[in-house]
C-alpha cells in the first residue's frame, strides 16, 4: 500500500518545495514570503517523515519533528516578530521584474536537472530522481539573495538556500547524521537571530533596512 503511494508522496512534497520557492520569487510582500517559508518548512518536514517511514528509520521521524519546529514554526515566527500592521506594509522593490525573475527560476530549475543527472549521475531511485529540486532551491535562494534589496528579504533568500541544502541532503543520502543535523539547525537559527538583530539596528541607525544604503566602506 505505502509502496505505491511512496513515489507520489515524494513527488508531492518536493513539488510543494519547488512551488513555494517560485512563489517566494514572485511575491514582493514580506509577510507573504514569511508565510511561504513556513509552508516550505512544513513540506520539508513531511518529506523527511515520508523518507523516514519508507526506510524504516525512526531517527528520521525525530529529525522531521525538529525541522517542523525550527523551519516550519520557529524561524518564520522570529522573522514575523514585529507588529503585524507594520510588516504588512513592507513591500520589496527587487532589482528584477517578476516576469524576468520567474523566467530565471525556470532556467535555474532546468539547469539543476541537467547538472544533477549529468554530473552527479543520480536519478535511478525515487529520491535521486527528485534530487534536482534541492539544487534548484539552492540556486533560487541565490537569486533572491542577489536580487533583493531589503535586509529581511535577503535573510529569506538565505533560508531558502539552507532549505535547499537540507532537501538535497535528505534526497541523496537520507540525511546527514543526527548530531550534525542538530548542529546545523542550531547554527542556522543563531545566524537568523543575529541577522534579525542587525536588521533591527539598521532600522534605527539608517531609518530603513534597504541594504543599498550600506555603501560607506569601500576602497
Amino acid at each position, binding site marked *: 500500500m505505502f509502496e505505491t503511494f511512496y513515489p507520489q508522496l515524494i513527488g508531492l512534497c518536493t513539488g510543494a518545495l519547488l512551488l513555494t520557492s517560485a512563489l517566494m520569487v514572485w511575491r514582493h510582500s514580506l509577510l507573504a514570503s514569511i508565510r511561504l517559508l513556513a509552508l516550505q518548512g512544513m513540506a520539508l518536514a513531511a518529506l523527511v517523515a515520508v523518507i523516514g517511514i519508507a526506510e524504516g528509520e525512526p531517527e528520521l521521524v525525530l529529525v522531521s519533528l525538529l525541522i517542523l519546529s525550527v523551519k516550519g514554526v520557529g524561524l518564520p515566527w522570529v522573522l514575523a516578530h514585529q507588529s503585524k500592521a507594520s510588516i504588512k506594509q513592507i513591500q520589496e522593490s527587487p532589482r528584477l521584474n517578476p516576469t524576468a525573475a520567474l523566467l530565471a527560476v525556470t532556467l535555474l530549475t532546468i539547469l539543476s536537472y541537467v547538472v544533477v543527472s549529468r554530473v552527479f549521475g543520480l536519478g535511478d531511485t525515487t529520491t535521486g530522481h527528485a534530487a534536482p529540486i534541492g539544487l534548484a532551491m539552492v540556486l533560487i535562494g541565490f537569486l533572491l539573495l542577489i536580487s533583493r534589496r531589503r535586509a529581511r528579504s535577503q535573510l529569506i533568500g538565505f533560508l531558502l538556500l539552507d532549505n535547499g541544502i537540507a532537501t538535497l541532503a535528505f534526497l541523496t*543520502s537520507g540525511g*546527514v547524521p543526527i548530531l550534525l543535523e542538530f548542529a546545523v539547525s542550531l547554527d542556522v537559527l543563531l545566524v537568523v537571530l543575529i*541577522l534579525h538583530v542587525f536588521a533591527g539596528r539598521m532600522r534605527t541607525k539608517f531609518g530603513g533596512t534597504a541594504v543599498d544604503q550600506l555603501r560607506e566602506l569601500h576602497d
Partner: protein
Amino acid sequence: MSFVLWIPLVGPLVFAGLSLLLGGSALRRFVGVAASSAVLVSGLLLVSAVLGGSVPDSGGGMLRADALSAYMLSVVGAVGLISTWGGLSSAASSRTKDAAGYEALIALFLAAMSLAVLADSIGLMWAAVEATTIATAFLVGHHRTRRSLEAAWKYVILGSVGVAIALLGIVLIYAASVGTDTPTLSWVLLSQSTRGLDPALITAGGALAVLGFATKSGLAPMHSWLPDAHSQAPAPVSGLMSGVLLSVALYAILRIQSITNLVIGPEFLRTMLSIGGLLSLLVAASLLIRQRDYKRMLAYSSIEHMGLMAIGVAIGPAALPSVLLYILGHGLIKATLFVISGRILKVEGTPVISDVRALLVRRPGLAVPWLIAMAAIVGFPPFSIFFSEVGIIMAGWSVGLGGVVGAALVLLLVIFAAFTRLTVQMTIGAPPDGAAFTPDYSSHGPRLPIILALATTATVAFVAEPVGTLLLQATAVLGGTN
C-alpha cells in the same frame, strides 16, 4: 591524555560563563587571556603527546588530535594569547555590561576554533566553522557605528552563505560515502584509500566545500567581506580573525583536499587553488598601492598571505611544511600588527595613513615595534615568513608550477613596494612645521606579548627539533611523505 582534548572546548566556555557572572569586577578583562592560555597549554600538551607517537582521541572518536590538529590548536592558542593580552582593556572600561558580552564572545570564539581543528568529522568541523561566524558577528559590530554595522552585515551574510556552500559540498561527500559499506563523515575513514568513493560526487562535493571554506579564508574573488570586517572590529578581534580564523578555514581546505586527492588526484583542486591564490595576490597588490587606511592595509595583507598559502596548498606535500610554518608566523605577526594598530588608532584618533606622520620621532614606543613587525610581514629574514615564502616558491618550481610561483613572485614584489611606501609614509619624516613636542616612549599597553611574538617568529624557523619534526609529521598526516 584524551581528557586534554576537552580543555580547549570546556575551559573557554567556563571562562565565558565567569565573564557573564563576575558582575562589575575588573578581573573580567583577563577572561580572553585565560581562555587563550587554556587553549595554548592543551595545544602544547597534545603536541608533546603526538611527538611521543600517540594520537589522543575522545568522545567515541568525535575528537582527535593528530600532529596537524595539535599544531593548529597550539597556533590558535598562541595567536589568541598575543591578541587578547596585547589588547587588554583598561580596568575601568571592563566593568561595563558590554565588556562582559565582549569577553564571553572572545572565549566562545576560541572554543569554536578549537573544536574546528580537533573534530574528526568534516560535519562537526563545518558546524564549528559556522559557530566562529556566530561568535564573531557581534564582535565585528561591537562599536555599533554605522560602519561597523555595515561591516558586520556583509560579514555574516557572505560568511554564512559561503559556509552554506561548504555544507552543500559536505552533503555530497556524505552522499558519496553512503554508496559504500559504512556511511561516514569522519575524515580519517574517508581518507582511507580503499573505500571506493564515487568520483563524480567527490569532485562536485570537494569543489563546493573548498569554494565555501575559501570564502571564509578570504581568498579572492570571495574576499569582499574581509577588509570591512577586519578594519571595523576591535583590534584584538581583528588580530584573532586575521591571524587564525583565516588559517582555520585553510585547515578545513587541507582536510577536504586529503580526501579528494585519494579519489580524483591532486590536479583538480590544484588548478582551483592556484587561480584563487593568484587572484588574491592580484587583488591585494592592486588595492594596497593606493591604500589610505592602515587597518585596511593590514586586512589586504592578510588576503595576500592567504593567497600565497593557498598556492602552497595547491603545490602539495612538498610545500606543506612551509605552509604550516607560514600559518604560525603570519598569525603571530598579524596579531601583533593589529594590536599595535589598535594602540595607534587610540592615541592618534585616526585610521588614515596620511594623517599619521613621523611616528618614529613622535612616538618611538609604538613606531619601533610597528617597523619591526612590518619588516617581518613583508618577508625579511630572520622572521619565519621569509623562510615560508622561499620554501613555497622553491617547492613550486620543483613540482612544475613555475609559471604560478613566478607570477606570485612578481605580485609579491609589487606588494613589497606598496607596503614599504605606506610604512615609510607613516613612520619616517620630520613632524609638521617643527612644532615643539616630547617624544612619547610609552608602548600604550603591555610590551611583553609583542616582544614574545616577534622573538618567536624570529627564531622558530631555526628550531629543527621539535618544530621541524612536528611539521613533517603534520604533512605526513595529510597523505604526503615529502
